[in-house]
């Protein structure tokens, strides 16, 4: 036997294994067929029980997200964490990583579901995120410790994510089985599946737009999700959105960026003196309303309404 091989039955320190019959097992996970017999938890079974006792929302989507998707995931998770909702997602690149990072921005606890063992960090480049998640939240997995991810383990992960959450919000997904897997499981479990709309022309949002076309509730931000959770019908809350309190020129610039004029060149055109527009961009960036995405594009950091 070489030193590399580890017997899966001996978990590393800190990992607890919760049986389906034991009290620490999240009740939501019991529902439906295929509930895992054991759940491996890093970060404390007690903490997991506490986090899943309150409202839980899954923020999921494509692993290859656009800047828009990343910003939406981030601001949605952040908004939910502010309201005391536990954010659940898989441990993966793209939307999932954005969701965890968004909640962690305000130190909101999250639950991440690993597709391999809870101690196997994949993708390894996200180790920093993993460590921050288990500091305040939990990493859980149905796969025994030390086992690398397998094709089937991603399916098991999707089921766990869907079962843990009362509401699943698909932020950005292409129309592909593996982007919509969590949504499929959630629907099978009879949970609410909502989606954030994207541009009709964008292939990255084809899956979410299809969900909306099939009748999924439309979510524009954390407020809409809270309405779904607590059953407040949309349109009852009437808090003025941040953008309506902005100075007129800033609002105009923000709206133009949202309209797709997302580079300084498109915004300023051939003006002899673009000072005002560039100043507005800088101010919006300082306020945290605009971020910079790949290729130097400006990306609105939250939706204009319902956020």
């Amino acid at each position, binding site marked *: 036997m070489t030193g590399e091989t580890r017997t899966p039955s001996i978990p590393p320190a800190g990992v607890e294994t919760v049986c389906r019959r034991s009290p620490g097992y999240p009740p939501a996970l019991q529902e439906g067929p295929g509930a895992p017999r054991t759940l491996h938890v890093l970060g404390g079974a007690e903490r997991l029980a506490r986090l899943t006792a309150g409202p839980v929302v899954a923020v999921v989507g494509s692993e*290859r*997200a*656009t*800047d828009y998707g*990343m*910003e939406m995931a*981030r601001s949605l998770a952040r908004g939910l964490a502010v309201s005391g909702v536990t954010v659940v997602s898989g441990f993966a*690149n*793209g939307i999932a*990583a*954005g969701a*965890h*990072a968004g909640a962690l921005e305000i130190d909101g606890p999250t639950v991440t579901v690993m597709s391999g063992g809870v101690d196997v960090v994949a*993708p390894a*480049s*996200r180790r*920093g*995120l993993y460590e921050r998640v288990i500091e305040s939240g939990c990493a859980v997995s149905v796969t025994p410790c030390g086992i690398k991810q397998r094709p089937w383990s991603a399916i098991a992960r999707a089921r766990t994510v869907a079962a843990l959450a009362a509401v699943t919000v698909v932020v950005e997904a292409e129309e592909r089985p593996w982007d919509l897997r969590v949504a499929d499981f959630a629907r099978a479990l009879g949970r609410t599946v909502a989606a954030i709309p994207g541009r009709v022309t*964008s*292939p*990255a949002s084809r899956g979410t737009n299809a969900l909306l076309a099939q009748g999924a509730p439309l979510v524009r931000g954390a407020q809409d999700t809270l309405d779904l959770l607590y059953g407040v019908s949309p349109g009852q809350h009437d808090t003025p959105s941040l953008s309506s309190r902005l100075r007129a020129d800033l609002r105009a610039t923000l709206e133009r960026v949202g309209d797709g004029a997302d*580079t*300084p*060149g*498109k915004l*300023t*055109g*051939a*003006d002899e003196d*673009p*000072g*005002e527009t*560039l*100043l*507005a*961009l*800088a*101010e919006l*960036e*300082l306020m*945290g309303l605009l*971020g*910079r*995405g*790949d*290729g*130097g*594009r400006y*990306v609105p950091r939250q939706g204009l309404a319902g956020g």
Partner: protein
Amino acid sequence: MLARTRTFTIEGLQTRRVTVEVDIRPGLPAFAIVGLADASVREARERVQAAILNSGYEFPARRITVNLAPGDVPKVGPGLDLALACGVLAASEQLPRERLETHALFGELALDGGVRPCRGTLAVAQACAEERVATLVLAPERAREAMLIDGLAVAAARELRSATRVLSGGPPDPLPAPEDPEPYAGGAGGRRLPDLGEVRGQHHAVRALVVAAAGGHNCLLSGSPGTGKTMLAQRVPSILPALSRPEAIEVTRIHSIAGEQEGVLAQSRPFRAPHHSITTAGLVGGARRGWVGEVVLAHRGVLFLDELSEFAKPTLEALRQPLEDGRVAIVRAKHSAAYPARFMLVAATNPCPCGYAGDRERCRCSETDMARHRRKLSGPLLDRIDLQAKLENTGSEGLAAEPWTSSERARERVMAARERQARRLRDECASVNAHMDVRLLERHARLDESGQRMLREAQSRGTLSARGQHRTLRVARTIADLNGCERVRMRDVGVALSLRPETGLRGSRAA
């Protein structure tokens, strides 16, 4: 018999005086050269012998010893041939000796006795003037280059016989008619520089470049392949102010030593665009003794690094000293030297390895690829880049757009802005805004209340580091100068903020 002649050798960018001592005494025929001569100088024996015989002189069949003094300076290159030959002729009493003290000789000999031009003529002429040599004898092709130096008589010699005629008090050969200056390194003199008026669309990037040129700021061009990054960079020299005469001589001297300037005064700023396979030694110098790198050749001009992320990381790190100090100090086992390297860095990069980041249909890069790309660019080098110009994929719409400005108009604005800077920084160690240190910034880039508030806010939100704040202030100062404004207003700060490079080109994907 003993004779002495004077010549010069070049070490790095330094010129060293060399006294050639020729001693002829009875003995077995031999021709020995001592005094740290390199291979090309030792080969001179054959050239000198053939040239003397083919010019109709006699080569003494005795023991000839040549000493090149001072003995601790390595002598490099074929430029010593002419002094060697004249020394041999004088020592064998075929040439009067009285003018050897006041004349310096510099040139390579052909076997038929002709005199060939050598690298570094301008540097040698400068040294002659400093050493109070009356006349410099050299090949006619380079006579005009040497004549750029005031207070030095230049005598052209087509062949060895002409040189001996000059040394005997005769007239020099006529100078060749001034020909059209030849182009070099990106265009000079008669050749027209590429013009900004040929750039259609990309208004934002052009504006950013004008700001960069006005303040001497290092800048980064980013954009998808085919959007015109290289095209824009090539037009930077055309909007920089023309070289002043001392600067032109400095530039010509460097390029003459590197063998790239062919006998004319540099008229436009150098533009160096090394390929990304360049080694560290190739970029900063030091591959061998006296070898200068691209940063030195770009002195007073533009260093363009295309595909910045493809350069080797240690090579890019080596740029830090020249970017900071305007000079590069090279220390090797057997030699050390400091060269001037004050240039404007223009770098270009794709937003991601495939170049189409943000375009989902075309971008094939994984998140790992993106992270690696960003890592390569992040760090200390990007810290020294003041502003970033983004180019856009505008397609046919952009090609139909009117050019935003022409080089001539842009240069006028740049010159006006530079004049303001020069006036303000008259008594300081900097000459352009980009070189202002913190002390100068505090004195010359005063902000009004709203501008200060904006910067404070940026800093408290963590968007701007202390260094980033200084960079923003420098760029804001330049923008105010371009607008002809003595005060830096809030809008200038805003524009500077929107032009600032993203830290490490970090996209929102990083978690």
